[in-house]
């Protein structure tokens, strides 16, 4: 497999040829998109994302003439014959050995690399401010998106960052998920629930999904809390999952657990038959679980 540094050198020396490039990724394809953007600029080509490789079969005399850089994404290319094509980039997780001479292995993006990237883009913003922004973004694409809100301005980035914070520009970001909410409810962690509720509109919490996760979680807790001799094998679950559930036991007395489980099943039924509006569910569920504790 080829070394990504080699491609980087070719880009920096503006000597990228029209040869096909295959990026083998293990995680996000963010790094690949940076290279694709650079290559398209050097070779003055438009980027076109294609759904299949069938365009490679020429239909006419003019098919080999193109001013676009074709990019194809897929999970694996193992058996398929890729007719050699110029100005083609493939992003995939699995590639057959016969294309090894065209393949660059893309390493997983490490946290320190993401930070370095952010610091290099916005050199005059304090690192701790950028670290905060990185911590509340879910992935590198979101980080890049938020950073671009600042990089479009040529200077005064720190001032702008502070302005954005006070204007709540980043307020739709949250590092809480629905699982943080369900875990907090399972552990009867009222302060944590309150904290998450404040950011609720920024978290993707779908009412029916929340009820389903809670039903399954409380059922698992009941299975273990009511029978201390229960084992992972008897429950048919992995040991690490068993111990994770066990850590959620003991926060509610047995009778309360049953009442909550019954209430959640009833809510699911009433939701599905249209008896309860979905907009009320989150508050209704939280109040009924934590109330009367």
């Amino acid at each position, binding site marked *: 497999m080829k070394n990504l540094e080699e491609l980087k050198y070719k880009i920096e020396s503006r000597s990228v040829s029209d040869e096909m490039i295959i990026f083998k990724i293990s995680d996000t394809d963010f790094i690949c998109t940076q290279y694709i953007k650079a290559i398209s600029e050097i070779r003055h080509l438009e980027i076109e994302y294609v759904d299949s490789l069938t365009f490679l079969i020429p239909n006419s005399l003019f098919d080999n003439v193109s001013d676009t850089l074709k990019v194809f994404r897929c999970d694996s290319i193992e058996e398929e014959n890729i007719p050699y094509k110029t100005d083609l980039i493939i992003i995939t997780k699995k590639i057959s050995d016969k294309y090894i001479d065209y393949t660059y292995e893309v390493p997983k993006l490490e946290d320190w690399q993401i930070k370095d990237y952010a610091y290099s883009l916005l050199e005059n913003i304090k690192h701790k401010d950028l670290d905060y922004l990185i911590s509340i973004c879910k992935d590198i694409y979101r980080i890049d998106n938020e950073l671009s809100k600042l990089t479009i301005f040529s200077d005064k980035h720190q001032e702008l960052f502070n302005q954005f914070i006070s204007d709540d520009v980043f307020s739709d970001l949250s590092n809480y998920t629905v699982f943080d909410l369900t875990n907090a409810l399972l552990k009867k962690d009222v302060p944590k629930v309150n904290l998450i509720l404040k950011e609720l509109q920024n978290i993707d919490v779908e009412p029916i999904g929340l009820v389903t996760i809670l*039903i399954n979680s409380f*059922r698992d807790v*009941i*299975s*273990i*809390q*009511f*029978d201390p001799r*229960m084992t992972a094998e008897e429950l048919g679950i992995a040991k690490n999952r068993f111990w994770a559930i066990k850590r959620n036991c003991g926060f509610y007395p*047995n009778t309360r657990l*049953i009442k909550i*489980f*019954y209430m959640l*099943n*009833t809510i*699911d*039924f009433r939701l*599905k*038959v*249209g008896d309860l509006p979905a907009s009320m569910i989150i508050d209704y569920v939280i109040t009924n679980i934590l109330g009367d504790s």
Partner: protein
Amino acid sequence: MNIFYQDKLLSHIDSFTLDTLPHTLLIQGDLGSGKHLIADYIVSKFEFPCIDITEQLNLDTIDEIYLSSQVRFFIIDTDNISVKEQNIILKFLEEPCATAYIILLNSNKKLLETIIGRCYKLVLHPYSKEQLKTFLIEGCSEEILNVAKTPGQIRCLIENDFIIMMEFADKIFNNIGTANFSNCLTIPNKLAFSKKDNGYPIDIFVLILIYKSASIYDVYMLTNKLYNNLCMPNVNKKYLFYNYLIDLKCIYNEKFRRVKV
């Protein structure tokens, strides 16, 4: 094609001609009463191609039907479709297509009234015990006739080992009062709540529960409530069954407490 004991319905279907055949038919009958057989009978009489679109109920499918010039039958099994999918059917029923004949199959499960109102109903006649006896295979216990109301239910009970299911139901009723909740929650593992699950089909097992619970009023009413709730569209049957077990345990705990006192 052998359809037994539905002569009146069959002769009614025989009276249809291409000019008088309604574009939307609703075949209603209990689970296992022969709705698919009746639908096949209609399709074979008129010899148009037939497609089951139950799993592809969306606006794209409806659009394709409208655009097609070929006369075809479309079958939809409405027993497990959601309210959203019922609304898609309704949209289609409100503006029928000249080349499409829709056959809806329904096991008396809740359907939108607006759908029922727009369909020509064909109702399968209930089977008597004597008629059902003819569907028993050799060696089968006649006790099945106390549970099953249709030939399909008889077949399902035989396929899923009726005696074992009866014993399982007995075990539930005899032990739920003293079992802990942890054990109670393992009961649904032996039941199939959807086509993907392994186990005794819940729609059939609940009939056994109703039969077995007949001697205790509270339990009988609770089990009937479960049966009715299972008929609602789009509900999670497993969650309904969990609550049934909790209520059942409470009833038996109360009975046990009273006996102890």
